[in-house]
């Protein structure tokens, strides 16, 4: 173990992760702000009007990155849940709890912007097609995770229970992603995927990818910020927290 270049297990301890997260989050926040500014500028002023939808299509610059993030964050939560159950690390549960509100926010944004777009384009705010329904279930999974972990007083037990929800719910993520392929849905298929060339104009694609990157940076920054608060709250009785410079007053 000591021969390794970096001992990753060192950062599994809240006491050493707390200052590291403190150093990292401002960088991600700054990067996210810059990327969001560039992305929004491209989305509103550079990207051309769509041939069918006119200006209404510009919702994709928020809608698509938000949907991607909502699915990806759930996978990350499930990853930390698996690590937490396997290695019994305290930090994993804290990471999952720190990610859940951001994931819920993105799932909600995805549903909300989709509804705003659906009314003029499809002619309905909401339809019970496979894509929309599975994304709604994802939103409920986030809410369920938050509610369950908040309902149990002992943080270690709350983490265990939450980890089960995160792991069971992860089955839903591929269902959301492939729903438009597996079944006839009202929701259109993917414009951007790993297997084929994107079916959208280059500037539109760039705007969307930069917005997605901005959302990534935001999510990392806010999760690190939140995990610091959770660490302080849970470890407030320990000596290392008492010895922190910000506690010396």
């Amino acid at each position, binding site marked *: 173990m000591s021969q390794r270049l970096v001992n990753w297990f060192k950062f599994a301890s809240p006491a050493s992760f707390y200052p590291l997260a403190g150093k990292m989050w401002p960088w991600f926040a700054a990067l996210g702000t810059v990327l969001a500014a560039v992305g929004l500028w491209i989305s509103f002023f550079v990207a*051309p*009007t*769509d*041939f*069918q*939808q006119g200006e209404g*299509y510009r919702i*994709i610059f928020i809608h698509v990155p938000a949907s991607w993030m909502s699915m990806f964050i759930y996978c990350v939560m499930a990853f930390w849940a*698996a690590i937490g*159950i*396997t*290695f*019994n690390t305290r930090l994993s549960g804290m990471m999952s709890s720190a990610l859940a509100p951001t994931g819920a926010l993105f799932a909600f944004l995805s549903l909300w912007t989709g509804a705003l777009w659906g009314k*003029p*384009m*499809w*002619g*309905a705010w909401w*339809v*019970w*097609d*496979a894509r929309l329904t599975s994304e709604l279930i994802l939103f409920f999974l986030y809410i369920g995770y938050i509610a369950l972990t908040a309902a149990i007083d002992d943080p270690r037990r709350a983490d265990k229970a939450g980890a089960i929800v995160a*792991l*069971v719910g*992860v*089955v839903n993520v591929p*269902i959301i992603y492939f729903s438009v392929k*597996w*079944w*006839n*849905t*009202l929701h*259109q*298929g*993917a*414009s951007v995927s790993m297997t084929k060339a994107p*079916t*959208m*104009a280059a500037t*539109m694609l760039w705007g969307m990818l930069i917005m997605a990157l901005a959302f990534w940076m935001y999510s990392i920054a806010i999760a690190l910020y939140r995990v610091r608060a959770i660490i302080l709250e849970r470890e407030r009785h320990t000596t290392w927290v008492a010895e922190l410079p910000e506690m010396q007053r």
Partner: protein
Amino acid sequence: MKPRQKRLAIILGGLAALGIAAALILNAFQSNLVFFFTPTQVANGEAPKERAFRIGGLVKEGSLQRSDIVARFIVTDTAKEIPVAYEGILPDLFSEGKGVVAQGVLGADGKFTATEVLAKHDENYMPPEAQAAVDKAHEATRTLKQ
């Protein structure tokens, strides 16, 4: 096996079991998860006969007729066709040659009376100039063939 390897194995095994269960359930509910039926499926008798359902396909070019408030058009999947009558406001993206999903009942005469019409959008996003270029290219190949 160390306890932590055992726990990891339980997680992976559990996820695999859950995945298989989900796949089986979704497979069993296949027909209920389908948002719409294509005209070919309707012709093969796969669509429900007694109750309302949705049909989906393309609006056939040149088939849209409006008389008063009733819009009549033909939904096609290029193999089979179904004539549809709809009383109400059509969505913005509704146009000939584009995707559509209509909810309603199929009459004994094979005509579909819709209570709701939704436009189905495709995954192509491009500026109007690019669409004009695509149309032009199509036009060119068509004249070449003739």
